[in-house]
């Protein structure tokens, strides 16, 4: 099993390279002088805030002369990298991107450490993994549900490492996010008590339900054997002013019937460079139930977010 040690833990990681015959995801390399020296692709910090679209200070977007890297960040407790492995990762990589999938700390086949389950910790883990993998260029982050919180936190704490942010069913800021975090905390607290006192895992194993038994035992170990519930209790959502500081392009995708759809409005209101899509007839299970439309949205958005549009002062167009 491929594993990387980073930030004091061992992480199960999958790196996927695009096939040689893949169509390039992005335009051909730009000519000389097309990107400013401060751009991360040239080793700069790239901290220029993205102005609103339109006019002479229209957003500058980055184009890549080599395959972009997409990191997939999964959701909480019963989720792991397989949810992307079976859905988005293959098609995105086949389209020409490099893919990185990993099990969050304590999840899947990654090490279940006693502590370290905040979104700030998750962002630190992600950056440490990129360091350990030798990935220095800014990456696209695709976060599903809680993974979207980790991805958004990374865009705030390490903006120079994030080329673009895809939030699938994630409410990151304000009262909607607070309510979601509280709901998650309540659900997981009840689950932890139930798993421990009803010995759910052992009962399922005795009944021959191997798959469910393993999931229950893993959830029990995570919820009752680590600080994850305490960390979630102390978690705070992003402030709306933090959303306004997200410099990279953002794509938000929500189910029309999801409790988190209010997060879409916050993104539109506060994030300078943002596209939001609401998928009809869906709730929280967008990744699983609408994989193909989600894949198409992401690829289309990545292509458009990478095309360079420069003002007259830059002097070079894509």
């Amino acid at each position, binding site marked *: 099993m491929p594993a990387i040690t980073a930030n004091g833990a061992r992480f199960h990681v999958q790196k996927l390279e695009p096939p040689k015959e893949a169509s390039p995801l992005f335009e051909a390399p730009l000519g000389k002088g097309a990107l400013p020296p401060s751009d991360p692709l040239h080793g700069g910090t790239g901290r220029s805030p993205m102005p609103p679209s339109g006019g002479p200070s229209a957003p500058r977007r980055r184009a890549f002369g080599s395959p972009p890297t997409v990191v997939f960040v999964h959701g909480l407790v019963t989720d792991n990298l397989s949810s992307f492995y079976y859905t988005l990762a*293959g098609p995105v990589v086949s389209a020409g991107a490099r893919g990185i999938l990993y099990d969050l700390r304590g999840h899947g086949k990654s090490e279940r450490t006693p502590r370290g389950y905040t979104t700030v910790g998750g962002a630190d883990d992600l950056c440490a993994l990129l360091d350990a993998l030798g990935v220095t260029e800014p990456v696209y982050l695709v976060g599903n549900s809680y993974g979207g919180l980790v991805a958004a936190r990374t865009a705030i704490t390490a903006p120079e490492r994030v080329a673009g942010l895809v939030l699938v069913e994630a409410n990151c800021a304000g009262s909607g996010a607070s309510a979601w975090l509280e709901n998650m905390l309540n659900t997981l607290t009840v689950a932890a008590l139930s798993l421990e006192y009803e010995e759910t895992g052992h009962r399922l194993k005795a009944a021959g339900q*191997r798959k469910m038994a393993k999931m229950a035992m893993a959830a029990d170990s995570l919820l009752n054997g680590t600080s994850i519930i305490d960390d979630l209790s102390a978690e705070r959502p992003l402030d709306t002013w933090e959303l306004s500081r997200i410099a990279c392009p953002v794509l938000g995708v929500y189910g029309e019937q999801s409790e988190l759809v209010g997060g879409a409005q916050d993104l539109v209101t506060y994030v300078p460079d943002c596209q939001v899509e609401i998928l009809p007839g869906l709730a929280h299970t967008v990744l699983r139930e609408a994989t193909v439309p989600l894949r198409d949205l992401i690829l289309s958005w990545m292509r458009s977010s990478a095309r360079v549009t420069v003002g007259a002062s830059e002097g070079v167009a894509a």
Partner: protein
Amino acid sequence: MSAVFDEVVKIVTEVVGEDFLLDEEITLGTSFNGDLGLESIEFVELSENLQEYYGERVNLVEFIAEKDLDGMMAITVGELVTYIESQLASV
């Protein structure tokens, strides 16, 4: 049975655990989800172990990319063996 089948059984046993397989004989018709109850992440582990053994020729991400969710859940040992054998033969 072929050498590929024997290797797949060996790797599946490593992933699932021998204690579970004491009551289960693996055949070409054995399904990973229905019969073996493989978790999604264990199927990833199976994929990784197969690729470690056979190299880049065996890529389960490509193999499952053409299947819908129901198809993926119903994959049998026989289908996997057929895929691996075809990949090895095409080198």
